[in-house]
């Protein structure tokens, strides 16, 4: 068995028993990356030297320290919107192409303290704006299952890296489905955390009200191990939750079945437009979960159809404000072949931003502008309250909801990119979750024409333990998460 085929737990056992070293492990991943990634293009930056340095530090600790964590010495990659000190953090945008932050995101700091090994930074839709990674300012990542198809977005690079065995786990970021969609399209397990569960300090913001950092890995158990390490209150983030972090992996180890759990199926999510294979995979998965002892009930989320317009209005507005700091003055791209400061602003932003980014900035600026604020932004915020209340009500009669992640499997590269509205509509199942701030797990549950299908498990605020338990139990009975794309076994 090859090293990249092991779970985090198995790898941890080998590392702590010193059967392999972190340096060996890291080299193995780096070798795979350099061999396979030119075709997949999941990494923007591969930090070979730094990774090996971190691996050696980890090995020191593994040798001498009793207090090793499950993630000590384990390599990982991070979406390129997460600040890593001294390493390019580009958000896949030309405007930050050579930007090196002088500080680490809190989530990264936590993984430094566990002595995990950062392999590099993953490609994404520019600033997180997109659902396919086609909006990257550099290149489009390929879906490892079929290189002509998108990996999903915006954490497409992170998902592809994990799916292709180029990282045991990755940190992704979910604002409007950006962890769940690519996880679903690439056949891996990805968690959108409760808003505030993981610190946003150092996460380059797209939509401050919705952004979350979440783990992506090959199983719910692996995701749980990462979540334990990165979650927790951060005094530098005023929106970070104060509640203590549970020992998720221990809870998963102890679970035997899903008896006593009520699963809600929102009727608004199983409608026309859903690919018949996606539909049938979901229904089979739900039956599987039922057989584990859960009770299934039908619920309703009546304002579902408004989720997309609400999401886009708020997200455009906040994004337009968050992107104002890219002005060519203190960091990043700066077009100084300019006659005035105004010129610097205009030329820098014109050259640095891609089409989708510009579009969203324009629409967001408009939605907030005088005279339109009430009709657009404020209205959207009010409907958002109704959507949140829909979930609260639904969770009175169930512990979790199950829905598809996407109406289809991964579409072809170039298929949706010409019409932005088409792209927005593919987010129909994922955005409501971000509006309510609740967590949701995407778990592989089928294959259609060689492309993965994902199941979404949503829960109330801070219910990560429940979601991971459902995912874990489901994975103990099924083997979708053990299926891998053709490039998985690509030998030299």
């Amino acid at each position: 068995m090859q090293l990249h085929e092991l779970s985090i737990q198995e790898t941890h056992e080998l590392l702590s028993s010193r059967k392999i070293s972190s340096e060996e492990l890291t080299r193995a991943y780096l070798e795979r990356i350099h061999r396979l990634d030119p075709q997949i293009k999941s990494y923007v930056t591969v930090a070979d030297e730094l990774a090996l340095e971190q691996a050696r530090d980890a090995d020191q600790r593994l040798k001498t320290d009793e207090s090793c964590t499950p993630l000590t010495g384990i390599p990982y990659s991070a979406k390129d919107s997460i600040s890593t000190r001294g390493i390019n953090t580009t958000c896949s945008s030309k405007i930050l192409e050579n930007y090196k932050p002088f500080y680490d995101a809190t989530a990264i700091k936590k993984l430094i303290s566990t002595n995990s090994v950062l392999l590099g930074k993953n490609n994404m839709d520019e600033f997180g704006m997109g659902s396919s990674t086609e909006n990257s300012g550099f290149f489009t990542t390929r879906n490892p299952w079929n290189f002509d198809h998108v990996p999903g977005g915006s954490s497409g690079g992170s998902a592809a890296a994990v799916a292709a065995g180029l990282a045991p786990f990755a940190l992704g970021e979910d604002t409007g489905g950006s962890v769940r969609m690519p996880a679903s399209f690439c056949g891996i397990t990805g968690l959108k955390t409760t808003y505030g569960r993981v610190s946003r300090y150092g996460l380059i913001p797209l939509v401050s009200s919705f952004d979350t950092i979440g783990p992506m890995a090959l199983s719910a158990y692996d995701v749980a191990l990462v979540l334990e390490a990165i979650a927790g209150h951060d005094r530098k983030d005023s929106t970070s939750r104060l509640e203590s972090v549970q020992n998720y992996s221990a809870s998963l180890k102890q679970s035997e079945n899903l008896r006593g759990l009520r699963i809600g199926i929102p009727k608004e999510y199983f409608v026309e437009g859903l690919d018949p294979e996606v539909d049938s995979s979901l229904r089979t998965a739900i039956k599987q979960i039922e057989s584990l002892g859960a009770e299934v009930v039908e619920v309703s989320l009546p304002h579902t159809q408004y989720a997309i317009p609400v999401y886009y209005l708020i997200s455009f507005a906040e994004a337009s404000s968050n992107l104002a700091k890219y002005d060519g003055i203190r960091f990043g791209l700066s077009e100084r072949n300019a006659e005035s400061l105004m010129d610097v602003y205009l030329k820098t932003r014109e050259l640095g931003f891609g089409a989708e980014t510009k579009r969203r900035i324009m629409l967001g600026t408009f939605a907030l502008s005088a005279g339109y604020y009430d009709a657009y932004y404020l209205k959207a915020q009010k409907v958002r309250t109704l959507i949140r209340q829909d979930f609260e009500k639904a969770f009175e009669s169930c512990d979790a909801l199950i829905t598809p992640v996407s109406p289809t499997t991964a579409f072809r590269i170039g298929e949706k990119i010409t019409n932005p509205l088409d792209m927005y509509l593919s987010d129909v199942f994922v955005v409501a979750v971000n509006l309510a701030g609740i967590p949701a797990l995407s778990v592989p549950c089928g294959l259609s024409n060689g492309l993965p299908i994902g199941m979404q498990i949503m829960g109330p605020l801070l219910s990560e333990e429940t979601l991971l338990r459902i995912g874990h139990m489901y994975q103990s009975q099924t083997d979708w998460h053990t299926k891998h794309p053709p490039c998985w076994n690509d030998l030299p």
Partner: protein
Amino acid sequence: MKYQAVIGLEVHAELLTKSKMFCGCAVVDSITAKPNRYICPVCTGQPGALPVLNKKAIELAVRVGLALGCQIHTESIFARKNYFYPDLPKGYQISQYDQPLATDGKIQIETEAGIKEVRIRRVHLEEDTGKLSHADAHSFIDYNRSGVPLLEIVTEPDLRSPEEVRAYATKLHAILRYLDVNSGDMEKGVIRFEANVSVREEGSDQLNTRTEIKNLNSFRALTLGTEYEIQRQGEIYARGGIVEQETLGFNEATGKTYSQRGKEEAHDYRYFPEPDLPPLVLDSAWIESIRASLPELPEAKMRRFIEQYELTPQEARLLISEKLLADYFEEVVSKSKSPAKMISSWIAGEFMRYMNDMNLDMAKIPIDAEDLAQLIDMVLDKTVSGSSAKVVLAEMFKNGGKPAEIVKAKNLAQVSDEGFIQDIITKILNDNPKEVEQFLAGKESLLQWFMGQAARATRGKADPTKTKELLLKAVEDKRK
């Protein structure tokens, strides 16, 4: 056509906190500190940095709101004010828009026409910007000041003249000093005034176009600037013109306001609630505890001084003009036997003269209250003459020392010995027969001259009262 000025004042005051509004960088004097030393990811707008509210800034803001008679809102929210400017690193300023911290206050000002109430529309918290400087073809940015807590205080347009503007500004300035929330140094820009000025026909209640005058860095500029602008606008209306809504600067040298931009850009700040900061919810009990610990404000102190110390309004006004001065005065009074009025006159006179001439900081008064008290008491009990005491005071300011020691060292003890004085007087009168004749003939002013001679002869030590008494007697004797 008689025109009436309609003026509102906006004041931005930097708060005296140790650290910035949203991060732990130190608040420093941005004029003297080396550039870009007190910065971090938050106050330089690095991608991914997040703000965290400074508790002390909130406390100081509540203090001000209460002192201005405002309603403190137990729930308030922060908002982003979006615009591009190089001293604004995030491309937005975190401020408050809907639901500010405090609204609907009022203060009273003294005008020639009497007491007038000025309504305070709102008091809210925000962050300061960085500092720009310019040379040749470039501008330079220093972010030390970026993120410093700022309090914005806005009045209703209740002010009607430059005098009222000045009265409000000086009163507010004194209150902020009293509350110890701001250092008051206008020249350093820690407190900034902006006037919104419009003009209308007397008797009308409509509001005409207003202009905004920025960067009025002194009370003088504030008064002159508004005065000029009122006149300028009046003249425009008088000849049937239109006043443009614009931002103006004031040139103190020419005494004129000038337009600050070529093409006025539409200010659409696109305010929306700051998603990185949860709503601020204040505990009523906490607000009440701040209210209970408010220091005595200038107005109340003045009334008390007049009553308690039997001072005139003028005397009281001078002492309360600076809280530290008022405190010092009371400390001297508490340590002295002399009447408060006498102490007041010493402080207002000689003491303040040296403080001003030597450019001393009220926060660092070089003379202990106890020592000044002792000196004044020595005058009271005639141990030294008034003029000798002035010499002692000068010495205390210049080189320190205790009054009793200085008197001894300089041999300034007053002489009241009649015999001694009598001898001196006799000599003076004998030496100056012509003057004696002139005095007896009616030239009263020569008395001062004789006193001067006696003072010189005794090196200021002779008790002047006694001297005068004996002199007059001696001269009268000569008449016989």
